Structures are given as C-alpha cells and as structure tokens.
C-alpha cells in the first residue's frame, strides 16, 4: 500500500487523519484519492505552487510517474508567509 502523510492543516481538513494508506499506481492517483485533493491540486489538477510533494524522500514533480507499491509520499507546505502588499 502507498502511504501518504499530510501536514497539520490538511490533516485537520481530513478529519484529523494524518496518514493514509492507498492503492495508487501513480502519484496523481494517490493525491486525487485524498479527501483534501482540492487543497493539494488546483482546478486544473496541477499541484499548487507552494505544495511540495516528496516520494521516498525525493522531491517529485511528475504526477504521472509510477509509484512503487510501498512508496511513502509526504506532502509538505513550503515555507511561506508574511505580507506581500
């Protein structure tokens, strides 16, 4: 099973669940299966710019790339903040 780990706010939005075990052949499948898919992906299905996704410790950019059955996916909120205007 693919394991997906969520950061704090996404876990809150997922009903308090931080860890998901999913059947997913690709990273795209794994992200779309989450109850917070709309917060990770925008309306085009693209990963939001400040959401960073790591697969087995490496930053992943290709949503179509196949996942190993035991892949560990970690979603990270990029360091961001302050006020720009």
């Amino acid at each position, binding site marked *: 099973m693919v394991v997906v780990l969520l950061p704090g*706010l996404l876990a809150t939005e997922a009903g308090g669940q931080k860890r998901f075990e999913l059947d997913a052949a690709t990273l795209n499948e794994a992200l779309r299966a989450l109850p917070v898919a709309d917060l990770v992906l925008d*309306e085009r299905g693209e990963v939001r710019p400040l959401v960073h996704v790591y697969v087995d410790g490496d930053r992943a950019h290709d949503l179509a790339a196949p996942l190993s059955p035991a892949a560990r996916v970690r979603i990270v909120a990029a360091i961001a903040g302050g006020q720009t205007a």
Partner: protein
Amino acid sequence: MGVQLLVGTRKGLFTIRGDDERRSFEVQGPYLKGWTINHAVSDPRDGVLYACTNNWVYGGTVHRSDDDGATWERSENLGLPEESGLKLASTWHLEPGHTTEPGTLWLGGEPAVLFRSEDSGASWEVNEAVLEHETRARWEPGAGGLITHSITLDREDPKKLWIGISAAGVFRTEDGGATWKPANQGTEACFFPENRFPEVGQCVHKVLAHPGRAGRLWQQNHCGVYRSDDSGESWERLDLNGLPSGFGFALALDPSDPDTAFVIPEESAENRVTCDGRIGIYRTTDAGVSWRLIVAEEPAWAAVLREGMSFDDEAVYAGTQSGHVYALRDGEVVEAARHLPPILSVEAAPLQ
C-alpha cells in the same frame, strides 16, 4: 435580542456574543485555525455559518458550519473553467441569496469572479456573464487584487443585485446574473490622468443597497462617498459635505432609516491610516447632506477594512486592523473585543 458578531481575521474566525443592550460582549474562538477569513456571515434564512477561507499554500475556498462553528465542511470543486484561462486565486465575500430562494448563495473572488450555489455551498457554478464581460479587458487590479468583493441584493426582486469589483466598478443585473450592466455614472476614477468618468474602471471599495428603500445604494469608493437613488443609474458625491477625506473602505447603514449611513474615512490612498489619528466613525442622517463625527477611539491609526463594518437594528460594529472591535449604539461606543489578530471582516446576526 442579543447579537452574534462573526469576526474574520488573518488568523481564523472569532465569534462575539453581545447582550441586548450591546454593553457586554464575550469572545469565542478562534475557529478555522490556519485560514485567513476574508469574510464570514450567518445566513439569516437558516443560521448556517459561511466563511471565505484562504491560505497561502492551499488556495481559497469556502467553509460552512450548521452547528455554530463546532464542525465545518469545505466546499470542494470550487474553481474556474479551463477555457477561461484563469484560476481561482482567493475567495472574498459570500452573500446569502434572496429570502425566496433558500439554499442559494453568491460568492465573490479573485480574479473578478462571481459564483452561485443553489445547494448551500455543496457545489458552485461560475457566473459566465461576469467572467466573459465585454469590458473585462479594461478592469485593473486594486491593491487587494482584481476582486469581486461586494454583492448586495434587492430586497424585493430576487433577479436584481449589484456587485462591486476593484477596480472595475459597480455592475447591476436585473435578470438573475444573465447580464450585467456597468453602474458607474457619476463616480470618479480620480487615479486616471484623463477621462475620470469612464464607463468602467472605477475603484469601488464597498457598495450596499439599503434594505428598506428600493433603488437606494450607498458606495464608499477610492475616490469619494456616493449615494444613488435610481438603482445605480447615477451617483451623487457626498464626501465633500463634511468628511475629512473621500478615501476609505468601511460602510454601514441603518435598516430603519435609508437616510442614515456610517463611514470611517482614511487619510488618503497614499497613507492608509485613520484620519486625524483617531478611529472616527462619521454618520449622516440626512442622506449625505452633512456628516457628524463620533469618535470611537483616540489616539489610533489602525484602519477598518472594506468588510470591517457591519450593522443590525440596534448598533453599528467596526473591527480594526489592530484587532479591536467596537459597537456603536445611540451615539455611545463600547469596546467589544481587543487584541484579536488583524480584522478583515465583521458581520452581525441575531443571537440564536
């Protein structure tokens, strides 16, 4: 009857319960931690709470609560069609629909978009007439972005409403949103070097239709305070009648008196602080012929933003960027909260 204030801040949502006399207040929250609340409102038809929730990382969405904030549901599938070439950047204002249309909601956001829901926010449909408006190419973003921030309904006719977009101006529909007509005649675009009274391009900061007099609108603009008595066909400028500045954001009305309005002017577009170092709430009771100052607090420079003032039958409420909330009733000002995070919105609802 007491009041429940919904206070949207940069760091979550707070509620404030006020007593019948508006003298005693109790703060609760924060709710929706981690979200910036551009606006929150209680639906007067059923008491459901809605919040325009935004986050640096996760974008803009809407949350609803039917148990007074204990639990929240998020609107999923909120976005713009691919053929528009646009993506939803943020959500700014949610307006419960007409009393004859239960479950209907209107939602304004960036970039200058309007949505309608007919199922209490479970799903949303973008308003294509706004998205593809023939004047859209002439719209320019204000400091807060290209945002649909004001949505105000005609009390009688569910097909008639107005929206305010910065900086595009006021638009009116009389067919439920199928078509939108610019409603900016007489309002100035003082930042343009030429043609300061264009069809569109005005920087409206807040527009409200009076709930008791058909066709009467009030507007706080980047370039003045205005009133319309013909549904926005034309506007009369009012800030030159005794206000220290025409610039400001906050606007409130008196439901029982269409000639009464409240504003909190700011020094200027270049220096966005309260005038004269005080949070000065100015009131007119003669439709803008004259204005009278009611000091809420001094010294104070933290201004009140476009959604930061609200009203009910009893009082006017204002929340500042310094996190203070004031209630103004019968000319007396009472502090309702202090040291909240910077306040983005205040809405008043009857305490259930």
